[in-house]
């Protein structure tokens, strides 16, 4: 096989094996598909981020003076839809999971490479539908699509937005399907379940949610579209339907969807904390069980989004109680990461800084979640900025921090180049500071009673100072997010070549060259060691330049 790389005399990698647009768009190599995903989710991240900045700018002053009310409603709707369905949910699984899972378990590829490519195309079809929606005037249902507002009262592009999410949902399902089968069927000899990196465990748990939750969202969106087209009445109270049924079905997916976002992040943090503490994870078994526990119990709590929606008093109590059950495995994870650092040999490279940030922000996000699970307090703070702050602590403070940490940790493996460490640390710091400045004031705003999705708060000017702080933080955050993109791109051309194992980390992915060859392993590896065998790795993390 004469490949492009061989002709130029370089070592053949997945990047230089073939060139040309076709070799990318028709690839079935999980690593190339991961990069396709990386490019597309980055695009959507910046689209969603742009909407967020406009929202924050509008809220700088109490009056609605930057955009019109309808425009504002579209901005927060599309910010939510783009970020949730086109960034947060696919980001870690489809980019890092796709790239790393086969390598981590010693496989040449995912079980179904063509389905993997199909799932990217579905994502793109969904994404194009979403872009079509945005460019044609947008949609203003709120990302939650609450009926009967979305079905009977709005005349924006609800149907295309619904279809976009429907199609993207199937992309997510196929990714999950591939991961589950791959984890079961493609492990190398010796790679037992108890030797799997926690990153793989986390994706396995995530896949369960994707597989069993997403279809319910899909059918719910089908019903919303049918309602809009034919006015059947299933969610319309004036035709005998129950709008709360929509909320039940929607949150049955959309609450566990939060765990789709955060569990892979937890997997990343486990890898990073172990590597930069030079230690085996504290309580491997509990960590693996905890992600599974979160995935299962996470399905039992959805109606805590509906405590004031008009559900039965008794159902509310059950869901409140169950919500606390899901907090226990989350608490275990935080304590175990902390304990992993105990008596370690810790260095503060960029990925570790993100991991520190994740632990802190996830702790705060999780603890404020307990406020929301508590019925009496939830009545006051639900649908206010308290909720907005809480879920941004989990999704941005948790998931995005972990995603960036992971991107820095594995960037040398993915690209074969080192990023500039100093800039990396600066960006991590900016993200952390900017994030807290943006979202901490929103907790206070929420308890003060500022409802979410308000375009104009001129009736309550007392909310302004906190909003100004939040907007100031958002600009810092924006710089923090732009920096990595710039220096990652820079490093692709100017970065130092990365060695196979720049961090002296444990795990199969570090035993193959950077960037990996097309089929990952020339020979099928046989695993004879436990995960995070840092006791067998004599070298420390090389000192940063």
């Amino acid at each position, binding site marked *: 096989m004469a490949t492009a790389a061989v002709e130029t005399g370089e070592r053949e990698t997945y990047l230089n094996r073939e060139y040309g647009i076709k070799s990318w768009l028709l690839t079935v190599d999980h690593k190339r598909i991961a990069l396709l995903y990386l490019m597309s989710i980055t695009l959507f991240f910046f689209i969603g981020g742009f909407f967020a900045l406009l929202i924050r700018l509008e809220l700088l002053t109490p009056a*609605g003076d930057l955009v019109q*009310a*309808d425009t504002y*409603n579209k901005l927060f709707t599309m910010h939510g839809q783009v970020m949730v369905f086109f960034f947060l949910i696919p980001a870690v699984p489809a980019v890092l999971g796709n790239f790393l899972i086969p390598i981590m378990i010693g496989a040449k590829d995912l079980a179904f490479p063509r389905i993997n490519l199909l799932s990217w195309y579905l994502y793109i079809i969904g994404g194009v539908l979403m872009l079509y929606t945005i460019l044609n005037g947008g949609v203003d249902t709120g990302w939650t699509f609450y009926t*009967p*507002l979305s079905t009977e*009262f709005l005349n924006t592009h609800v149907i295309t937005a619904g279809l976009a999410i429907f199609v993207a949902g199937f992309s997510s399902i196929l990714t999950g399907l591939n991961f589950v089968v791959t984890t079961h069927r493609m492990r190398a000899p010796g790679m037992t379940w108890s030797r799997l990196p926690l990153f793989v465990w986390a994706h396995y748990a995530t896949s369960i949610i994707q597989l069993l939750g997403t279809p319910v969202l899909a059918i719910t969106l089908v019903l919303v579209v049918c309602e809009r087209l034919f006015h059947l009445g299933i969610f319309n*109270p004036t035709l005998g339907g129950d*709008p*709360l049924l929509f909320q039940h079905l929607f949150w049955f997916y959309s609450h566990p969807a939060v765990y789709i976002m955060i569990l892979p992040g937890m997997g990343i943090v486990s890898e990073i904390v172990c590597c930069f*503490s*030079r*230690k*085996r994870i*504290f*309580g*491997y*078994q*509990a960590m693996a069980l905890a992600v599974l526990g979160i995935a299962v119990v996470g399905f039992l709590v959805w109606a805590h989004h509906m405590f*004031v929606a*008009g559900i039965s008093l008794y159902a509310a109590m059950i869901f409140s*109680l169950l919500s*606390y059950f899901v*907090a*226990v495995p989350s608490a*275990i994870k*935080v*304590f175990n990461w*902390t304990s992993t*650092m105990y*008596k370690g*040999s*810790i260095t*503060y490279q960029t990925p570790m800084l993100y991991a*520190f940030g994740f*632990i*802190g922000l996830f*702790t*705060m996000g999780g603890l404020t979640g*307990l406020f929301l*699970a*508590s019925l*009496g*307090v939830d*009545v*006051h703070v639900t*649908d*206010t900025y308290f909720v907005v702050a809480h879920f941004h602590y989990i999704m941005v403070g948790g998931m995005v921090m972990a995603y960036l940490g992971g991107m820095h940790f594995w960037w040398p493996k993915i690209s074969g180049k080192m990023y500039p460490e100093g800039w990396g640390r600066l960006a991590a710091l900016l993200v952390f500071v900017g994030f807290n400045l943006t979202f901490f004031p929103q907790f206070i705003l929420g308890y*003060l*009673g500022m*409802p*979410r*999705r*308000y*375009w*104009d*708060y001129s*009736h309550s000017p*007392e909310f*302004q100072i906190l909003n100004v702080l939040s907007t100031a933080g958002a600009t810092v955050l924006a710089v923090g997010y732009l920096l990595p993109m710039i220096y990652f791109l820079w490093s692709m051309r100017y970065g130092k070549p990365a060695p196979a194992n720049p961090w002296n980390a444990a795990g199969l992915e570090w035993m193959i060259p950077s960037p990996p060859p097309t089929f990952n392993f020339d020979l099928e590896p046989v695993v004879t060691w436990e995960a995070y065998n840092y006791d067998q790795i004599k070298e420390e993390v090389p000192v940063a330049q």
Partner: protein
Amino acid sequence: MFQTMPLWPVRASTTANSVDALYIFLVVVSALMSAAIFTMVVYFAIRYRRQQGRRAEQIEGSHALEITWSVIPFCVFMVFFGWGANIYFKERKPPQDSAEVYTVAKQWMWKFEHMEGQREINELHVPLGRDVKMIMTSQDVIHSFYVPAFRIKQDVLPGRYTVAWFRPTKPGTYHLFCAEYCGTSHSGMVGSVVVMEPKDYEAWMGGGGSQPLAVTGQQLFTQLGCVTCHRQDAQGRGPNLVGIYNKPVLLEDGRTVIADENYIRESILQPAAKIVNGYKPIMPTFQGQISDEQLNALVAYVKSLSQSSGQTGGKSMAAATAQPQM
């Protein structure tokens, strides 16, 4: 330009006191928990930073420790749950003698109607120290009745009643927000709740020359011909409505339901849905034929039929102001 920046919302209802107490408890416990975690992370990060000649000590984990830090937080969580559930339970159960305000929400305004017949838009006047029960419905989409100073919030749904209640403890004017996104002018669907000293309230109330809601309902009851079947004796073709409010009703299919506002409402709009035992489903439907305001008046009238027998019907604010304060 900047007004003062409050860090704590006004506390103006009995519920606000209990919610704040729990909230402060939660803040303190969470602060302690996160302080413990942050201290450990920072301490370990510094204490066990990489040093020449020292290597990481491998520790497998400890089930004892893991169980400890699962069980202890879980017990704390159960306190959160129990305390919060207790508050919620009270929030969802309006006291028997509450004054009642019928509320119709629509894009994008709040319409209130007092038992005395006063109507208000986006402004609600209530007397200090009186339990007030909001009986709410929506004409279009889902809204949410939210008064931060009272720490109460309840979604307002089309097609049914939802209920919220509060007892104001501090005179003043407080924000009323719609907290559920309801379309273009969601952020314009705001108003205020004015809590007045009982004397001022009576003066305000005396200003209007409207007729009580139940009387309006009674007139409708006659006009619409309800009275021909729902007679106040056992001879009517429809059930006698005297004294039924909040009482169990035996249905023809053997089920028993409580005749609350939602049941009365449903029985007017869809009479065939829950037929009282021993009666024929002959009543015509009033769905789409009466407005939400008329429906409220009818419900208020039917409930007023239960007052004489010592039941709680639609109590008015005026009746309230005469009562002893808190």
